[in-house]
């Protein structure tokens, strides 16, 4: 009996693909199963092929693989689009009554279930429920108790009234029944349920939740795929914690709004994707020079320019590292899993305030459109600690004033960190500026003061490297001669690739890096290995360049930049080719 199942629903954008997929994903998660979702979509709202895919198992799943076991095809094109992943024994559920399927022939070796989705939905109360009929059919095929759907339907349609919920439940039952009565039902799947509790969420939601946990009260952003969900998540929620979201007129405004709120003393944040990062670059320098704590989430997508807005890429690493004119100290955090997005967002706020600097936190399209199950205790609110750094109040202000009682907001200190006074603090009056300035924040072109302030700002990075733990995570065999290194979202696929590699007797040590700047020094690890491979979703190997720079050793590169995330089995094959 097969428990690890790859499922998809596909059709035209506007067919309710996403919400149907989400209903099923939640039902699986509530039934105590692990879930990993992915989406294929084009940059348009109506029309164009789109699909929602779910991989589910009792054991943890953290990647997609090249296999599709059950497909709900709302259009014939859906079958064509997925032909590579369909295999002998794959089940295709379709509605033969629809004209789209008049010439459709079930591919050899596959099982076609022609289910009158629309007619059955009408029997239940409306054609609009045809996707739910299909979900019911899936429950029968996959031997998944249909009651698990009910709660998801309640959650989705409860707001529209009990009648609608009941109709949807009925629609699902009709789908289940139809398959049971018209087809041989001894399929090879059995989706077990367990007593485990899971939560199901994506990177944007985890970042938003991390921001609230960190006490962020101000968010300003401008819609852009795939970062918009951060704003959507915060809107309506952050208010419950005394915060506010502003939809700005553009990214220039967004970052400046957040900067203003941060100068007011609030923990503030903005999120965007590549093109928005470009627009923010000028103010990014101002944030650093004025020593303002600010968190900027960059949910990467395929560039340059508007590139492929709905496709995966990790192409902005250099922009986050080097973007902006002049030299700008910063932190760049690159969480490697959805749950880590939560933790790193909290950390980003602490780093921003402890060192009064801009902090990038990156995720990418593959994480942002992926909902994944986690144990709820991976989001332990009790473990959250907020550190505001050197904030001074009236009682301490005199320590930081000059002989004329002027507050030294940019005082040169051994650790590079100056005191911070929020507006309203008596005696803390000061100006900050993007111009080079002295300790008081006043413009200067004095050669010594210039050097002093540049050194001071750089010192903050050096201090952080001493005090903080910019560490990596490790998987596989620590003594292996084969070392694979990746950053950001590739971790899940690579962890699963380790299993595929093990099956073929390829032994690997895998290091996953959640910090790009500052980053762990991997010199010893690289020197200890015979083969070093850096895996990333870009064409030039931006992270590989850094590893070479740090370790003075040439590394192999495995790159993917066709817009599609790594799949575990595909990645395993590529790694094997390089190290074997």
């Amino acid at each position, binding site marked *: 009996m097969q428990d690890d199942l790859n499922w998809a629903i596909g059709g035209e954008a506007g067919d309710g693909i996403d919400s149907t997929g989400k209903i099923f994903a939640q039902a699986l998660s509530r039934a105590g199963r692990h879930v990993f979702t992915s989406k294929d979509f084009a940059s348009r709202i109506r029309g164009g092929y789109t699909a929602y895919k779910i991989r589910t198992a009792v054991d943890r799943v953290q990647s997609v693989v090249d296999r599709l076991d059950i497909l709900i095809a709302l259009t014939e094109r859906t079958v064509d689009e997925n032909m590579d992943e369909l295999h002998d024994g794959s089940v295709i559920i379709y509605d033969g009554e629809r004209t789209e399927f008049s010439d459709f022939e079930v591919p050899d070796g596959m099982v076609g279930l022609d289910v009158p989705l629309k007619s059955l939905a009408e029997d239940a109360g409306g054609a609009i429920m045809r996707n739910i009929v299909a979900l019911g059919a899936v429950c029968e095929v996959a031997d998944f108790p249909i009651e698990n759907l009910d709660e998801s339907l309640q959650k989705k349609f409860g707001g529209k009234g009990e009648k609608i919920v009941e109709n949807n439940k009925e629609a699902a039952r009709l789908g289940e029944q139809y398959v049971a009565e018209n087809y041989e039902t001894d399929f090879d799947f059995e989706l077990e349920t367990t007593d485990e509790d899971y939560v199901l969420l994506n990177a944007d939601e985890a970042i938003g939740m991390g921001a609230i946990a*960190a006490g962020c009260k101000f968010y300003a952003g401008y819609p852009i795929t795939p970062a918009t969900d951060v704003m959507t998540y915060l809107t309506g929620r952050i208010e419950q914690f005394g915060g506010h979201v502003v939809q700005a007129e553009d990214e220039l405004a967004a970052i*400046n709004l957040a900067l203003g709120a941060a100068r*007011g003393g609030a923990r503030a944040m903005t999120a965007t994707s590549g093109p928005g990062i470009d627009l923010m670059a*000028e103010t990014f320098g101002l944030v650093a020079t004025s020593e303002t704590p600010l968190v900027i989430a960059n949910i990467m997508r395929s560039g340059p320019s508007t590139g492929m807005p709905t496709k995966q890429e990790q192409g902005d690493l250099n922009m986050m590292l080097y973007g902006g004119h002049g030299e700008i100290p910063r932190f760049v955090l690159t969480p490697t899993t959805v749950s880590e997005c939560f933790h790193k967002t909290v950390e980003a706020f602490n780093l921003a305030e402890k060192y009064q600097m801009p902090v990038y936190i990156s995720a990418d399209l593959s994480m942002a459109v992926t909902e994944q199950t986690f144990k709820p205790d991976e989001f332990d609110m009790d473990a959250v600690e907020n550190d505001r750094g050197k904030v001074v109040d009236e009682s301490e202000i005199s320590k930081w004033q000059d002989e004329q009682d002027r507050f030294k907001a940019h005082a040169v200190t051994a650790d590079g960190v100056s005191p911070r006074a929020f507006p*309203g603090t008596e005696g803390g009056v000061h100006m*900050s500026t993007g111009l080079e300035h002295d300790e008081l924040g006043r413009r200067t072109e004095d050669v010594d003061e210039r050097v002093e302030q540049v050194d001071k700002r750089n010192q903050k990075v050096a201090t952080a490297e001493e005090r903080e733990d910019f560490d990596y995570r490790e998987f596989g065999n620590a003594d292996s001669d084969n070392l694979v290194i990746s950053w950001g979202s590739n971790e899940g696929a690579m962890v699963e690739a380790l299993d595929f590699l093990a099956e073929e007797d390829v032994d690997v040590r895998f290091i996953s890096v959640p910090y790009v700047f500052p980053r762990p020094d991997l010199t010893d690890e690289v020197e200890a290995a015979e083969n070093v491979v850096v895996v990333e979703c870009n064409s030039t190997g931006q992270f590989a360049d850094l590893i070479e720079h740090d370790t003075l050793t040439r590394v192999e590169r495995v790159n993917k930049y066709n817009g599609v995330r790594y799949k575990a089995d595909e990645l395993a094959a590529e790694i094997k080719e390089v190290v074997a």
Partner: protein
Amino acid sequence: MSSNARFIDFKSDKQPTWCPGCGDFGTMNGIMKGLAETGNTPDETFVVAGIGCSGKIGTYMRSYALHGVHGRALPVGTGVKIARPDIEVVVAGGDGDGYSIGAGHFIHAVRRNIDLTYVVMDNRIYGLTKGQASPTSRSDFETSTTPDGPKQPPVNPLALALSAGGTFIAQSFSSNAKRHQEIVQKAIEHDGFSIVNTFSPCVTFNDVDTYDYFRDNIVDLDEADHDPTDREAAKDKILDNDKEYIGVLWEDEDATDYNTAHGVDEPMHEVPDGAPDGATDLVREFY
């Protein structure tokens, strides 16, 4: 509000490097006096400035302040005000800063009706970059970059503000000290976004829109029988390109400012040591 802060308390000990005679001196004095007269203190005031000669104002004043990048002062001021409704916010900048590179932000700050005072030091030229045409330059104004004039009509900032739903629209002249101070004071007192477009002549690069020109052509609305609560009358004056009106052209006294409309009235600078109460419910939502 009442406080003992005086005009002089808003002055920093940094001497302005503006050219002797620059209109920005008078504009700044009016702002400082207006702040003092309306009972504000430097500790509870935040001044945001743009880039340009005008943008240097934050340096010469004493208050919490940010001197930002070119054109983006209004979003910064908006962020400060939303996070800190308890703080008085004044944004200042030039005509290039506000109506060219920052024009988009201007419209949207007006629409939001955020409760801050925006003073534009309008010298109808780019001063700091040494005399190029600005968006308020006359269409035949000859400069190094427009030898035959810009050949396009000047931006009418007050008309932009009115059409975007502005709730306090005024114009002023830096050299009429008393009158300028009075207009700025009213702007500070207004609940919502206030724009005071202030003629601040550039004595170095603009030999057309000079003190003499303004003195000869200004019409004070106080002497023109103007009712600032009459929107139609305001519109007529604002669209009258032949006169240089000063005074309050339009005020909507019943306007609801942004923070009130959005219910953001609590300062946001406190942060708990750990996740805020109720945060665990956020996790539960994902079950």
